[in-house]
């Protein structure tokens, strides 16, 4: 839903309604022959600039002897603050489920971080996930689709240190083509991924078809 709202803001109500009407005509009778909203090839959000992170490197400079120095691994993240969305949320731990997918918060009002990924202030992507809605209404990441390139937010670690990140990319991905490496893959930079659902809700399985992923790099 957040992606839908985002498109509405940028594309205009009239255009969006026309598109939706066309989709209704194309899908209702054909069983989905027309491409559903947000469930075809990945679509980069309009107005998102090419990645240009200027994150401070968490990798220490080589020692004077020239010997390599282990890169900083960071600390456990404790809080996500997104002023543009009015969010200030404590984080809960999320792991990997028995089916191999990322665990998600059982409480639809909570945001969680993937404990097997990066950590605030260290190398690698710190991956945070929250629901766009529950079974009864909007949830904590309902507005995530509004974040655009240039927006900033912060992550506070358990020691109280605050790290600022800037969005450089926001993109929707079909779940069956989820870019595991781009989202969870190792990095020498300090980055954050914010994940929620978007696109069409498939009532037959009880899930949205797509994920919205916001990519952000550390700036301070």
């Amino acid at each position: 839903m957040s992606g839908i709202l985002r498109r509405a803001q940028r594309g205009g109500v009239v255009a969006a309604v026309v598109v939706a009407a066309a989709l209704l005509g194309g899908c209702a009778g054909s069983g989905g022959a027309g491409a559903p909203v947000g469930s075809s090839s990945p679509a980069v959000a309009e107005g998102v600039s090419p990645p240009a992170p200027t994150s401070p490197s968490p990798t220490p400079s080589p020692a004077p002897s020239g010997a390599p120095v282990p890169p900083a691994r960071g600390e456990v993240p404790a809080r996500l603050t997104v002023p543009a969305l009015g969010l200030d949320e404590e984080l809960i731990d999320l792991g990997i489920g028995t089916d191999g997918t990322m665990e998600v918060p059982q409480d639809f009002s909570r945001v969680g971080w993937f404990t097997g990924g990066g950590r605030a202030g260290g190398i690698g992507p710190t991956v945070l996930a929250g629901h766009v809605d529950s079974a009864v209404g909007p949830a904590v990441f309902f507005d995530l689709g509004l974040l655009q390139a240039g927006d900033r937010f912060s992550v506070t670690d358990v020691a109280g240190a605050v790290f600022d990140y800037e969005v450089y990319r926001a993109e929707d991905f079909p779940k069956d083509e989820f870019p595991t490496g781009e989202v969870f893959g190792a990095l020498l930079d300090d980055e954050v991924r914010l994940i929620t659902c978007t696109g069409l809700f498939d009532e037959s399985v009880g899930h949205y078809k797509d994920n919205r992923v916001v990519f952000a790099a550390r700036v301070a």
Partner: protein
Amino acid sequence: MSIQRTARRRTGIIGLGGAALAGGVLVFGAAAPAHAETEVAEPSSFTSAFTVMATPDQVLNADGVATPGPAGASGTFDFRVNSDLDIICYDITVTGISGDYMSPAKTATHIHQAAAGKAGPPRIAFPNPAPVGDGPRTSSGCLQGPFTTGIVNNGVDTGDGFTLAQLEADSAAFAADTHTAANPAGAVRGQLSQVPVGGVQTGGGGAASALAVPATPDAAGATAGAVAAAAIGVVGLGLAAGVALKRRRDGIAG
């Protein structure tokens, strides 16, 4: 890094042949075919995934003694596994290394059965990242077992009998690295770290249902209802956002 990773992902399958060829040509002493295992197309699904941040400070020699690679070198190894099919797909990028590869194995880029701080035998040999030079080197594709490495201990190849189910059972016991002539013990190395596969199920559909037209019992009707929710949601943007904030602060969850 992100730009490179995006481009590589989208061209990974196309680039497989070239990377494999380059790797085979560049391997020292690789007179035999570069791979006994089969290079295959990407499967439709995966049972697990792993990532590795390989750095020079983690390199050990065969005796387990710290033998750092060159300062400034690094590597990322992203693996996706379908253990039912014994297929591993790899996306490898190394930077900050120079010169040719060197290894007694049939390639110089491996997964070793080696826990953190320990040495261990290679179990899988991947095509070496290319091109050789001072810039970034990449290697992408998918391999299907049975695997061979070209390293023979007691008459048995160290890849013999190894399956990806073993890797999934204890991924922390495995490391990835690449070896060069300048750093035969390894230029970079890192432990495998498991990451999720597939999409993330972060929605219950309540917002869609609240805005949807009356549902019809058939699947086509359900799809139409969801699309209708999209259309109506456009109009209700401001109101819906306000409701979202209130619900969140009230701690409403389904």
